[in-house]
């Protein structure tokens, strides 16, 4: 029995989507979706910025300098300094680490947990489905920012708590998307065949259904990433994200920047631009990926 199940697995994987050379797929994506590719490029640049922040930063991002407070952009301070004399360029560069780290980790965490809930809910069906979907409904009834705010306020400001607070609102959205895919895939003949051969439920769910939800999963992640970065910025702006003095883009826009904005506009321009670009990049990429990976939209 086990042997025949393994045989089916092999047969299934060889029947998978045709394996085209990777480079040409990427090239086709760039040609068909130039905007999406631009978004991807933007994300790569930001990721590199975050990765090499230590090298790219010209100053220690938390070091204050009372001799150069609110200094305008200059050769020494490329993007100027803030009210405590901290270098804005170094803070933007280091801020990208926190923004991307929180954005990516919370999105992944939310998507994975939500995906598992969706998979179980869709595959098991019946009362489990009904119950879990009502819980998801309840979670989704609250706006993302409100839910994240409640979580962050309850847990207190720290990196880990910010990640948890932002990931929770993503769970029901991920659960919905994955559950919808699972409901479709569950009825396909190859699943029926696997079931007829006596393959265990766990194996069907995780080995035969889950890999086929990868498309919507990727779309989901890219679509939620921009939102997560924005929520992180909002939480930090409200003092519930990363605690001072560590830089995050939202924190940089917070109280002090708003007060000194008239006098030192560079305090709001650069972190604001960084947030806009990151969100813009993920949205462009997400849209393009959705168009490419969603069979209903393919070829449109």
């Amino acid at each position, binding site marked *: 029995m086990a042997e025949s199940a393994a045989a089916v697995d092999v047969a299934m994987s060889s029947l998978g989507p045709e394996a085209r050379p990777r480079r040409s797929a990427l090239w086709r994506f760039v040609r068909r979706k130039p905007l999406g590719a631009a978004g991807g490029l933007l994300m790569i640049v930001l990721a590199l910025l975050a990765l090499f922040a230590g090298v790219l930063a010209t100053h220690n991002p938390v070091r*204050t*300098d*009372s001799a150069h407070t609110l200094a305008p952009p200059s050769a020494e301070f490329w993007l100027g300094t803030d009210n*405590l004399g901290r270098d804005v360029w170094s803070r933007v560069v280091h801020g990208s680490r926190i923004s991307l780290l929180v954005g990516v980790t919370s999105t992944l965490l939310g998507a994975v947990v939500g995906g598992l809930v969706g998979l179980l809910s869709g595959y098991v069906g019946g009362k489990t489905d009904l119950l879990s979907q009502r819980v998801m409904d309840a979670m989704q009834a609250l706006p993302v920012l409100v839910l994240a705010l409640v979580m962050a306020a309850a847990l207190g400001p720290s990196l880990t708590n910010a990640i948890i607070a932002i990931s929770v609102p993503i769970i029901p959205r991920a659960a919905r998307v994955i559950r919808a895919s699972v409901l479709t895939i569950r009825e396909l003949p190859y699943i029926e065949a696997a079931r007829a051969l006596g393959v265990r439920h766990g194996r069907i769910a995780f080995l035969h259904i889950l890999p086929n939800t990868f498309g919507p999963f990727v779309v989901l992640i890219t679509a939620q990433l921009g939102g997560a970065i924005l929520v992180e910025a909002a939480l930090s702006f409200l003092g519930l994200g990363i605690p*001072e003095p560590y830089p995050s883009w939202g924190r940089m826009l917070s109280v002090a920047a708003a*007060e000194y904005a008239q006098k030192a506009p560079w305090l709001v321009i650069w972190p604001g631009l960084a947030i806009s670009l990151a969100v813009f990049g993920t949205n462009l990429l997400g849209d393009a990926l959705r168009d490419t990976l969603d069979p209903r939209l393919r070829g449109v």
Partner: protein
Amino acid sequence: MPRPPLTVSLALAALALVLAAATLPAVGQTPKYGGVLATSPISAPPSLSPHEEATIAVVASASVCFNNLVYFDPQKKQESAATVVPELAERWSWQDGSRTLVFFLRKGVKWHDGKPFTSQDVKYTFDMVRGAPDAKGKLRVNPRKLWYENVEAIEAPDPYTVAFRLKRPQPALLLMLASGYSPVYPAHVPPAEFRTRCVGTGPFKLKDHRPGEYVEFVKNPDYFVKGRPYMDGVKVVFIKDRSTQIAALQAGQLDVAGSGWNKANAETAMKGAAGLVVIEADGGTNDNVLVNFKRPPFTDVRVRRALNLALDRAAYVKGPRQGGASLGGAMLPPPAGVWGLSPADLAKLPGTGDPTRQKTEAKRLLAEAGFGPAKPLKVAVSTRAVAIYVDTASWMVDQLQQVGIDATLEQIETGVWHPKMTRRDYQIALNVTGVGVDDPDANLVENFKCGSPRNYSDYCSEEIDRMIAEQSQMTDRAARLKLVNDIDRRLQLDGARPILGWGKQYYAMWPHVKNYVPHENSIYNNSRMQDIWLDKR
């Protein structure tokens, strides 16, 4: 050194001009009657009862309704024993070798509800505040009980005489009674009612109070000072956000603002509104570091000293305070303060010398105490989640990191801040303390005496307590100053509660507001507004 940009130079020049103009008396101008003054305090007051609260928001919002026995002359910038003027007391006299303070009260004064004011009201109020066993009233919270711990009994031999009998001589008691925190309450109104309304004898009567929104007062036609107040009313609008306050002032919706502003706020306000007047005043508010004496490693004097040395005071003035602060010890330094250390004394204190040398010394002391790169001292710096606190605390974290202390910042919501400090639930904290009365009997007793509830550090030295008690009884001002300076120096060297410096206050107003004189050494004692008039048609 780079030249400051033109806009900054211009703004500073304008500020200087305006300061010069604003401090000139309104010569030859006859006060005009009428008009309503709109102002905004630092935040919405938690209640309207000054005796139950410890924030300027309450004093600034409710003082127009009350009177004291005596008050600091609102028109004199520096408060001292010499500027105490009569209010409900016509005159006073010290008797029995400064052991009894007798007040002779004004006759014919009425409460806003029409009942007569008598010596019973005074006895009732101060028996309540000092927590006398036979007091007829009780306060829910009593933040300044300690001010009156030397009062043995209050006697009211007739309706217009009150005598405060003291355990030992204490000339400074008169100053405490002159504070905005010491109004006389009517004996016939339960103290709990003052949380939402007020019945006083003051120049303005309560018209409307919407908690969290505004409180409105109208002129008291029966006010005992003839010809006062000049204005028809006062409206105190609660605006939380400083940028919104600035916008409201610029738009003319407020006549005066600036409580809790810093220099940059004042500059921003002036930039957007031609003719706005800004007055810079010391105000007696210091930024200080609370060090929890109950928690190791701060029990070790070397660690406290290292902490004190690591914080470069000159950088504090220029950085988080944007130049709007002066150096000082526990008492506000001269010329604004009466009892502070001289510049020569201050220059010898930890944190004021060459920063590189001080930081090296701090590292050495930490190493001696067993902390170094291999085993760094881990410290969470707690602070209130309010802009002016967080700015200074962020700066402080960086200063501590520079001597190898692994410092992080913990922001605490305003609502839990004071309870947390009172429970001593912190390691070290960045705190802002406003001094109610610029006198050692108020400031040193409240913040440094063993067992005082507001001594958040739990610093306790029998020697210092003895010295505090000794200076309190002195009548010779010069000798008292010498002893007070000695206490201050010891407190700073001991790292009792390191003072970073004294932040300046910035009051912004339209030029039609006349006779508004911010005080130099306290922000709490000039909110009566009976002499203010509006030069409007």
